């Protein structure tokens, strides 16, 4: 039953993707919206992966843009220099695919380097190391002439299309959701709930924090590659702290620990970004106020840890249908006194 349900979910996801792609190909969705939707999928990837650290594991990372930059630049170097890292005979889309994968792996490796010292400790050090890391990456890129320094690394081919971004988003969602529903994922959640208790239950807390951090860095790296190859350039200015904040807001808005929440918030905010494109400073003021207000009134994020699944939708629908027909039968709570 469970297997069937997850299969069904994947089929539906594939169906939606195909449907949208067909609409794009037919011109029913114009290139501008196709572009926005591609960005949306990239943001979904970024937000869901950040949620793994901040929402599921209860840690606090501010460096997602930094990992996206690492992945983006790595992939850009590979697709632009046919002689580097990947044999020259692999070209075009397959090369882009491999470049994205390598971008993710390099980001994951950097994630390991940053995470290991800071996640060993209890406390808020991760926040500051990741914030510092994001800035340092940006400064190093500004000074690295090989990739164009401050003006950015230009002339990438536009390999990213809606299909790539969509597939990546789906893979990210499925893998992270599966992870959460595994024993390893439960270990991560237990760290969020009570780190000391988790450790006395036999959970190697540092190891799991690092694992979650590295997984998230990997997906951030792949998202960075997608972003670079849709904008046809990577530049230090496209991976600033503000980008980290925007992704963080998606996680907060959707609920810390809720994957479906992050997806919804990423969709909402991508379109909101487009609508507010002309009012940049105003938009960020609005976002920062949103973040403060949500945290004060709903510290677990707007949706909390709740997930919206097909099952819920199904249940609500049948619930609405049956509500009027017969009274809902209530289960007797089992007596548990000794």
């Amino acid at each position, binding site marked *: 039953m469970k*297997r069937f349900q997850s299969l069904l979910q994947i089929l539906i996801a594939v169906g939606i993707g195909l449907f949208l792609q067909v609409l794009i190909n037919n011109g029913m969705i114009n290139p501008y919206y196709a572009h926005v939707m591609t960005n949306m999928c990239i943001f979904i990837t970024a937000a869901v992966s950040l949620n793994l650290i901040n929402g599921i594991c209860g840690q606090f990372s501010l460096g997602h843009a930094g990992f996206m930059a690492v992945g983006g630049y790595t992939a850009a170097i590979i697709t632009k220099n046919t002689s580097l890292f990947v044999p020259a005979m692999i070209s075009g889309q397959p090369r882009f695919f491999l470049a994205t994968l390598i971008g993710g792996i390099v980001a994951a490796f950097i994630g390991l380097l940053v995470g290991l010292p800071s996640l060993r400790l209890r406390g808020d050090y991760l926040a500051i190391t990741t914030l510092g890391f994001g800035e340092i990456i940006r400064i190093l890129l500004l000074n690295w002439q090989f990739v164009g320094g401050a003006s950015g690394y230009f002339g990438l081919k536009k390999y990213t299309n809606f299909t790539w971004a969509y597939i990546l988003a789906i893979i990210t969602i499925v893998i992270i959701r599966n992870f959460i529903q595994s024993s390893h994922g439960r270990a991560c959640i237990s760290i969020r709930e009570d780190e000391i208790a988790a450790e006395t239950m*036999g959970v190697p807390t540092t190891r799991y924090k690092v694992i979650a951090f590295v997984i998230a860095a990997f997906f951030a790296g792949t998202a960075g590659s997608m972003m670079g190859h849709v904008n046809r350039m990577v530049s230090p200015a496209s991976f600033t702290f503000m980008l980290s904040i925007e992704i963080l807001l998606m996680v907060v808005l959707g609920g810390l620990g809720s994957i479906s929440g992050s997806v919804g918030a990423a969709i909402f905010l991508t379109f909101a970004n487009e609508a507010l494109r002309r009012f940049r400073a105003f938009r960020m003021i609005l976002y920062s106020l949103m973040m403060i207000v949500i945290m004060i009134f709903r510290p677990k994020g707007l949706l909390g*840890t709740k997930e919206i699944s097909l099952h819920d939708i199904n249940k609500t629908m049948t619930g609405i249908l049956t509500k009027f027909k017969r009274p809902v039968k209530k289960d007797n709570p089992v007596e548990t006194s000794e």
Partner: protein
Amino acid sequence: MPVLETTNLCIRFGGLTAVSDFNICLEDGELVGLIGPNGAGKTTVFNLLTGVYEPTEGAISFCNEALCSAGKALQPYRITMKGMARTFQNIRLFKELSVIDNVKIAYHQNVKYGLLPAFLHAGPYAAEEKEIEKKAIDFLEIFNLHGKKDEQAKNLPYGEQRRLEIARALATNPKLLLLDEPAAGMNPQETSQLMELIRFIRDKFKLTILLIEHDMALVMGVCERIYVLDYGKIIAHGSPAEIRCDPKVIEAYLGEAV
């Protein structure tokens, strides 16, 4: 063969010596109490045994294995995996998680499948998760909590939260169980139920139990031996009857003899 043996355990926080010259020896299957006035260092002892604190001096040996030597203690999770489990004075459940997930986390140490099966829900994932689910449900049944398996832990009544915490600790399959004030906040009736439960656990799971408690009825009722701690040192040790009339114990609890 002793299950737990400490030699000259000592911990100092800055200038304050919280516990010193702490020697204790637990034989297999014993039910031992650790009592003492507030601030005597009882919970510190638990934290030393479970690796939350590193001792300044001394050694801990658990089933003939050294848990710490030369000031280097094993990490708490390793100690748990070696077979020592504990509860906390101020209940530390995973509050937002369901009752059954609280227990499932205790089984984490036995999980054999790696990250890849977890990502893909493939290979050994399904079989092992099913096994964990079944074990957890069986376990909750023993503690009469299976009816509430899907409730959030924080929504359980206080007594059941205590019981769940004990169940969760036992699910790690320990040889030694440390209970930190299990009767705190319970009324006399709940306490007597708890006494039953503690004896039941000892017999059913065939393990050794060390418990900290202020409730003298409970300590005197279930413990076979008692250690008394005051100002971080053991001041008395013996059967409940001996402890009850030990002048040093009376002095520690009531102050200077009048």
